[in-house]
């Protein structure tokens, strides 16, 4: 077992500044999009009184779900004692806070009255899942900050496990809260299921790890630091298990709905004749986002290639966005059934499938959230000692782990 040195990346290359500038540009475009929506009103978006949440929510919820999942790598190290994961923990913590910040920014900037966001912190309705989430999100950032401090400050080391356990329990609560946003909607056929809470938790494991793998590969690849197969193959094995678990939950969710006669028509819409929703479900979520990554990750030779692991991670992320689209937009596209057994029509679009066409500003607002998360991570790894000098096979023993020591750059 060797001592491990954590060091900031140099961050002086042209590539680093180009990356930083690119992310800053998308952040700026996202902010401009939000300003445009705020000053003109939401009629400039594709969101309507029928589909009230759109692409910004697809990105926001995806980022928030992925945020809690990104912390898992750290949790496996400090909560479950797997020492191989301990050197991976600081990046895991920063990535989770960054993703949460990106997601929440999108959510807040999409509000009809984003200027009143402070009201959400001065007026609480404790029956609202949204109000619980205000505490769950801020508490998460606080706990992860303490957890990072415990990992990075020698005097705080004894508290690492306690902080890790607290953060782990909190992140389970947080994703329960996010899933319950949809689970508690009693009147809509495609929501109203307690399954949303555990399904969102396992989705977070999958999305968060896929993002973590890509960030880790990029950080090590672009800085020329060694990243051994040992670490990567362990992570990709874990990702495959998570992707399969998400698929299991998705199957149970749809099977349950199919069993209820009252939900069959809505299920038929998503699975068979929902147009773009059906395509995004089968092609995006299931084929590209779940089956193909599983085939790649379990393949005896492709599963060991870095390029393939990166491709599988990208597919899991795209599949996650597809799943969010089907959940959020598809779920609203199916009309409310006020009078079961009756054909319904009105000037307010009762009884018809609700269409949604995302506008350019909405897409840029969503991408802006991703860029904010990226900016935070890219900046953090330059100023904080988050990454071990080497995660090479000679340093990390996947069976026994390595001893981590922080040293100045």
């Amino acid at each position: 077992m060797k001592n491990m040195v954590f060091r900031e990346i140099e961050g002086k290359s042209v590539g680093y500044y180009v990356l930083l500038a690119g992310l800053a540009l998308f952040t700026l475009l996202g902010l401009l999009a939000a300003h445009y929506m705020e000053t003109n009103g939401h009629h400039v978006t594709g969101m309507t009184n029928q589909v009230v949440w759109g692409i910004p929510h697809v990105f926001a919820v995806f980022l928030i779900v992925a945020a809690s999942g990104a912390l898992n790598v750290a949790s496996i190290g400090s909560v479950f004692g797997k020492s191989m994961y301990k050197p991976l923990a600081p990046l895991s913590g920063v990535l989770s806070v960054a993703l949460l910040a990106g997601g929440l920014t999108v959510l807040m900037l999409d509000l009809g009255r984003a200027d009143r966001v402070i009201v959400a912190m001065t007026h609480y309705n404790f029956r609202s899942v949204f109000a619980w989430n205000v505490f769950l999100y801020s508490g998460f950032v606080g706990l992860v900050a303490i957890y990072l401090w415990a990992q990075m400050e020698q005097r705080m080391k004894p508290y690492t496990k306690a902080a890790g356990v607290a953060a782990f329990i909190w992140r389970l609560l947080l994703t329960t809260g996010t899933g319950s946003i949809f689970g508690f909607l009693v009147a809509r056929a495609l929501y109203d299921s307690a399954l949303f809470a555990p399904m969102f938790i396992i989705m977070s494991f999958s999305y968060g790890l896929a993002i973590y793998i890509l960030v880790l590969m990029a950080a090590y690849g672009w800085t020329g630091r060694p990243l051994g197969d040992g670490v990567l193959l362990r992570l990709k094995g874990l990702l495959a298990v998570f992707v399969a678990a998400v698929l299991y939950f998705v199957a149970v969710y749809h099977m349950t709905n199919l069993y209820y006669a009252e939900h069959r028509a809505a299920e038929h819409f998503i699975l068979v004749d929902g147009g773009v929703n059906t395509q995004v479900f089968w092609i995006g979520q299931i084929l590209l986002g779940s089956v193909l990554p599983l085939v790649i990750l379990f393949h005896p030779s492709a599963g060991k290639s870095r390029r393939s692991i990166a491709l599988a991670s990208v597919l899991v992320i795209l599949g996650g966005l597809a799943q969010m689209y089907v959940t959020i937009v598809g779920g609203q596209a199916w009309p409310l059934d006020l009078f079961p057994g009756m054909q319904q029509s009105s000037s307010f679009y009762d009884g018809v499938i609700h269409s949604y066409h995302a506008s350019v500003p909405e897409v840029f607002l969503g991408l802006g959230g991703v860029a904010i998360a990226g900016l935070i991570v890219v900046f953090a790894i330059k100023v904080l000692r988050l990454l071990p000098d080497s995660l090479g096979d000679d340093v990390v023993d996947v069976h026994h782990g390595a001893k981590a020591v922080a040293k100045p750059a």
Partner: protein
Amino acid sequence: MSEVNTSRRQFLGWGTAAMAGLAIAPGVTLIDLAHGKPDDQPVSSKVRWGMLIDANQCHSGCSDCVTACNKENGLSGGTGPDDSQWIRKMDLKDTHSGRVMSLPMMCQHCGNPPCTDVCPTGASFKRADGIVLVDRHICIGCRYCMMACPYKARSFVAHPVTDQKPGRPRGIGTVEACTMCVERVDAGLKPACVDACAAAGHEAIIFGDLNDPNSDISKRIAEYTTKQVRADLGLDTGVRYQGV
């Protein structure tokens, strides 16, 4: 010093009081009759305002209730995907029997409203007398209430709003819905849709106090079979339907 004529003063005093009494009495009586609420008194939970909609009396081609609501509340009357519609006419057709009917649909003023449950700031709230409202000052425009409402009763203001009517607050970026014409109700009047329906000669909407067993609405509900839309959700709606 001249002596004060106390009897004259007494006469003037009593006279003035009697005149004032005469002047105020009809107003007080009217308010009492119509269950109106003086501005300085809080809303009472002794009253539960509600409506009974008789689909048998509602005419398919008539949308006077919608027009009256738009006029009363300063809505454009537009029916685009992002226009506000506080009340709409729904046409229903039984898929087996082919029986058709028409009825107005709006906020059902639930006793257990899902919109107030999910609202993070408490902007969606239920008054003690059962009227469900949105406080436009603390609505942040998250639209979670619109996701939660089983009746698709709420609209989001997606366009800038100008020339709002006094007492009918509306604003861009906030959510709005039928207020049961709360200002009219507090003044002892009936909601605009109810009056418009009566003026059209249909009288398909009856407004009144569900807690008062002697009110017209309570008597009708006691006598005829009525239903709550999506009664399975257990929301205890303030709007009931007959003939559906």
